[in-house]
């Protein structure tokens, strides 16, 4: 099988998964719309309006609720696929509301992923090659603290410290007023200035976990026979370290893209609320509280799509990286 065939196969698989997910989301979130009609009827009656049976039926027809549920799903799904996500309860088109937030979510997730690996891989290598040294113990200690601290708590602590010692409010991704401005160097710098706090918060636990993985697998690989073989050929330890054991120890790390990326995209809601980040999580949260179904469904769908893209990216990168996986799947 060629690589393009493999890609197509992954994409078909992804679409199937998304169809199943979308149906579930539709069932769970959209179906209670029947209650919405009841609520409208009740509300109008409370205002003294007289609602006839026909009025109610007309309302249901307006929401498409008179049709069988598969038809309802089909209508909704085709509309969504065309980018028509309907309106929020406040009458604003849903896509207007979420486009910017999609960008912020993807930006934060991808940067967090990169920072995680940029920190965890070198530290993991350091710890493994100097096992039981002072530095190794230090990073182990830091790692466990990182793992044990809940993200939102870390966010609160940072907020508090910055407020107390620098009088700064560090929430959001932009300084007040900057967000509405057109893109410029100043705006980009302002973004960078705000970005690193949420990155620290999001990345801490992730990095700690990845350091542990990297250290453990590298220690394992260092004891492998092929390391001895390479030494017996006359390789320098450093040449050998990066060409063989590090390369192999990176496998599970590369593999983890497939689940870390989706987790970054759809998780982090509490942190985003605490830090007032313009990502999808907080919007979903408030949409659910307000029972804004159109909006909530769209956000859930977008998150699912991004997560599935993350998984596929992870798969593709791993198959490019590890010939064993590539051959196993028949890609050559």
């Amino acid at each position, binding site marked *: 099988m060629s690589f393009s065939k493999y890609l197509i196969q992954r994409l078909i698989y992804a679409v199937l998964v998304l169809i199943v997910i979308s149906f579930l989301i539709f069932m769970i979130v959209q179906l209670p719309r029947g209650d919405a009609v009841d609520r409208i009827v009740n509300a109008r009656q409370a205002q003294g309006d007289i609602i006839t049976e026909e009025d109610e039926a007309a309302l249901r027809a307006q929401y498409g609720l008179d049709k069988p549920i598969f038809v309802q799903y089909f209508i909704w799904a085709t509309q969504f696929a065309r980018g028509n996500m309907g309106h929020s309860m406040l009458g604003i088109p849903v896509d207007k509301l979420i486009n910017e937030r999609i960008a912020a979510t993807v930006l934060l997730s991808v940067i967090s992923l990169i920072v995680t690996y940029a920190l965890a891989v070198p530290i993991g290598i350091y710890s493994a090659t100097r096992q039981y040294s002072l530095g190794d113990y230090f990073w182990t200690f830091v790692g466990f603290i990182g793992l044990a601290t809940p993200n939102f708590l870390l966010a609160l602590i940072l907020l508090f410290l910055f407020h107390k010692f620098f009088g700064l409010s560090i929430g959001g991704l932009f300084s007040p007023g900057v967000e509405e401005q057109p893109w410029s160097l100043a705006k980009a710098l302002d973004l960078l200035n705000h970005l690193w706090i949420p990155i620290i918060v999001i990345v801490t636990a992730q990095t700690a976990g990845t350091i542990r993985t990297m250290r453990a697998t590298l220690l394992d690989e260092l004891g*492998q*026979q*092929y390391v*001895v*073989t*390479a*030494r*017996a*050929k*006359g*390789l*320098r*330890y450093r*040449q050998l370290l990066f*060409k*063989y054991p590090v*390369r*192999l120890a990176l*496998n599970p790390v590369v593999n983890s893209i497939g689940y870390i990326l989706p987790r970054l995209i759809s998780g982090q809601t509490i942190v985003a609320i605490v830090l007032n980040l313009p990502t999808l999580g907080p919007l979903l949260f408030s949409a659910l509280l307000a029972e804004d179904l159109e909006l909530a469904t769209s956000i859930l769908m977008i998150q699912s799509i991004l997560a599935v893209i993350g998984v596929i990216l992870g798969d593709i990168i791993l198959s490019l990286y*590890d*010939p*064993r996986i590539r*051959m196993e799947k028949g890609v050559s």
Partner: protein
Amino acid sequence: MSDVVLEVKDLHTYFELEEGTLKAVNGVSFSIRKNRTLGVVGESGCGKSVTAQSIMRITPKKNSKISGQILLHRASGAVDLARLDEDGDEMRDLRGREIAMIFQEPMTAFSPVHTVGNQIMEALFVHGERDKSAARKRVIALLDEVGIPAPERRIDEYSFQLSGGMRQRSMIAMAIVLNPRLLIADEPTTALDVTIQSQILRLMKRLQRDNGMAIMFITHDLGVIATMADDVAVMYLGKIVEYGAARQIFKDPKHPYTKGLIRSIPKFGATDGAHLATIEGTVPVPLDPPDACPFANRCGEFIAGKCDVRMPAAVTVAPGHSVSCVLYE
């Protein structure tokens, strides 16, 4: 004497462990000549691999200590490997070029994510080859020489795509790519089935005829020694208990341990149900070993008050044939 390639004198390799000092190699001496094969035989744990690793200076740096002499004879004079810095350039330069090694597990001895060609060519690059296409040509020719069909294709394959026999052939190619003068083979056929095993042994003999290299052949299989070795060192618990020409040792074994090993070789055409003799017990771990014959606790001819009071000295029982056992002192 001029064709002696390697001369090991009173080699000791100790591991410092929490439980004490593990004397994996405890005073062995032997030499290997050009175009000749020294077979090193003994049960699991007797120190064969550690001896080989000591010569290559690839024992774990953290807790191993080597003493004695490991003389590599070259036209320019002898160099004592035991005195070289194991990470130094001089030792690294000798590895692969002068002394190369084949390992028991061809599956794990290759990295699974680099092609075999990459790993074989690397030996050339490490030792100064700059021309990539020349290296590739050389390796393809070599793969062909060690009997790998379609070498132009195999060179770009990964070890897991090759059969066990192919992998071992590739490893042999990797070891001899620089024409080393000494080849150490640490149980190169143990992981292979019998037919492949004899093919590999024939290959090694042919290569030796062509290149004239000295071979140190490690195995626990005396049958393999019989087909391969010119000289034999029988090891037990970090010591060589009997040493001599292969023919001599098979014809007239002296040490009770050697006799036991020879009795336990399956005989061709042995009648069904005929019991193979085995040596009772297992090799103990040489942690702070007592000063006595190492074989004492398993020996059928043990003499109390003689065998358990000191290590028997090596006695020459015939020209070139020596034994360490009180029966011959």
